């Protein structure tokens, strides 16, 4: 009886030690749920969800402070992905700014005065330029967040919608209706 107790106690202590060691050794930095949510957000970093970026919004969702239907760039598909990830029901879009087609910023280079304000606003460093020099958008890196539009003192930044072309064209969903077997 005693030996059985001792063995059980020894096993408990050994396992406890292993668990304790694992907790320190394999400690996960940050909140893994936040990372997972952040991974499905579109990373436009536009702030339209009411948070200063995708990661803060992900954190707010993980903490239960924010709903899953506030990100306009993610669109309906994004809400579906979040619902799947978190095991909750889909909700229609609930933010203030409606989702719209993807666009990139364009600087009218004739009017730019080189004030660098847009560079400071761009969340992904997609604007190239130096003080008093003409600025330009690196279109491939622009996420279309529109954050550079407002700070420009001479209103020379416009958003240009990305049009469908041969390389981004997609085969459409077949439109043949299935005829029910009579």
């Amino acid at each position: 009886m005693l030996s059985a107790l001792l063995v059980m106690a020894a096993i408990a202590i050994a396992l406890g030690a292993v668990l304790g060691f694992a907790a320190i050794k394999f400690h996960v930095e940050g909140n893994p749920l936040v990372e997972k949510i952040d991974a499905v957000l579109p990373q436009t970093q536009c702030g339209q969800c009411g948070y200063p970026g995708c990661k803060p919004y992900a954190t707010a969702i993980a903490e239960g402070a924010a709903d899953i239907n506030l990100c306009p760039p993610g669109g309906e598909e994004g809400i579906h992905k979040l619902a799947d990830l978190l095991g909750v029901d889909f909700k229609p879009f609930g933010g203030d700014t409606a989702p719209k087609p993807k666009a990139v910023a364009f600087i009218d280079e004739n009017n730019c005065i080189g004030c660098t304000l847009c560079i400071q606003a761009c969340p992904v460093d997609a604007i190239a330029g130096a003080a008093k020099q003409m600025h330009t958008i690196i279109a491939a890196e622009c996420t279309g967040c529109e954050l550079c539009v407002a700070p420009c003192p001479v209103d020379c930044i416009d958003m240009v919608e990305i049009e469908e072309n041969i390389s981004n064209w997609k085969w459409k969903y077949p439109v043949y209706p299935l005829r029910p077997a009579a």
Partner: protein
Amino acid sequence: MRSLFKFHGGIHPASNKAQSNHKPITQAALPSRLVIPLHQHVGNSAKPIVEAGQRVLKGQIIGAPEGHVSSAVHAPTSGVIAAIDMQQVAHPSGIPDLCITLIPDGDDEWIARESCDDWQAVAHTDLRHRLRDAGVVGLGGAAFPSDMKLYSHKHQIKTLVLNGAECEPYITCDDLLMRERAAEILQGAEIMRALLYAEEVLIGIEDNKPEAIAAMRSAILDGKHQNMEAVAVPTIYPGGGAKQLIRVLTGIEVAAGMRSTNLGVQCFNVGTAYSTWRAIRHGEALISRIVTVTGNVGQPQNFEALLGTPVNELVAQAGPLPDTRGYIMGGPMMGIRLPSAEVGVIKATNCLIAMSDSLFPPALPALPCIRCTRCVDVCPAELQPQELFWFAQSKNLLKAQEYHLFDCIECGACSYVCPSNIPLVEYYRFAKSEIWAQETSKKAADAARERHEYRELRIEREKQEKADKLAAKEKAALEAKALKSAAPLPPAVEGANVSLYDAPVDADPENTMQLKIQAAIDHAKQQAAVSKPENTEHLTPQQQAEIATIEARRARIRELALSSADEHTKE
């Protein structure tokens, strides 16, 4: 007699080749204009290097290859560049793409060609370069730049397979090419073999082309080609698929996600071998190809057509019948419906089929899948087409990928046998392009996240550096003070010092700075007022409403920015 292997499934659709394979290849008449797309191959579009109004010679490069995977585009005849603009191209979307329009001058004057009698003496990198500059791409339909495929990593390729199977109904261009130009195909194969360090060359030809097989066999004997064999393979669709032909000829099974090159086999179309020979031996760029014109036409036959020849001008030479209601590029199984008959012939145009209701009756309405698994029986890629259909139509893309959607070669054998008439391939194409698009936006999002995080880090670092600098400055100031109080300076010098230190150091420069900024803003505003955009008048009410909402949003953001700026200054 070589022992052959079998691949899974396959079907026997009516071949419809007899209509077009009895006439020799005809040189097509010079068209009134040529519409040459700059994106005719897999990879980056070629970059136009000519200007409108410029005269160009036959074979001159008009589009230069850009980036790693790309190919050159040439003027198919001499003439004047009429335009470089967006035009409809041979693409199922019907979306315009950049094209060069050339008006032939009728002289057909060649640019200086660099012929080469002894290609064996030329370095292999050089040969590959010449092929890239000659715009040689796969002519079987894939249009992949050939120079990229003619490379043997660690000389691991043993077998070069030449694909002359031509399994799709209606198409006879490779058949005629093999009958008429066998010797040159084989010479091209020799160049390919050398570049790949391959030992043997196997030419697979379906046994419904006895003339082609005979022509190739006698050319092998005449040319004294060693280790080269023209093999008659059974006629079964899709026996001309690269993986299927490799399997039949060598018994090698190219597993899911594998490349045949890792297993020692590389495969090229016979037309590509021919063009390779013309490019290396005669310095002739790829400016024309053999095109089968068949279907609802009076005289179905093969033409040698210049690239860029408008489809309607080419088909006119075969006498299209009045009830034609559109064209297919490629075969009836894997081809695409052309968005218009004005588009130009491209490097991938092996066949043009005029459609009529009697030849191609409209598709019957689809019924639900009854899970009869006939599609499974015929799928050459050994997939589960009915499951793929289920996942694709319910947009369950992850599952579709798990069921190896990307191994589907879109051969259409499954749709062909489906008793429910389900257009299965269209669902697979939809699912594939949806997955590609998601992949691309995922990549873009990851890149944006990285850049954002890097920026945050940088801002943090800059803050830290500033704080450090400030601390260092303060420390230095304190030390200087301590020094000063330790050793007081003589009074005269002290007076001079005071005047120096009391000068308003920071007020003035900042003021002028602000004035300058204000001046610049005013100037720019003036300029903006002068260069008013022209499309702001005559707007529809809808556009005006849109602009109003955008302006409101801008104003709100500005307000927010201002108030936050205020807060900052208060801090």
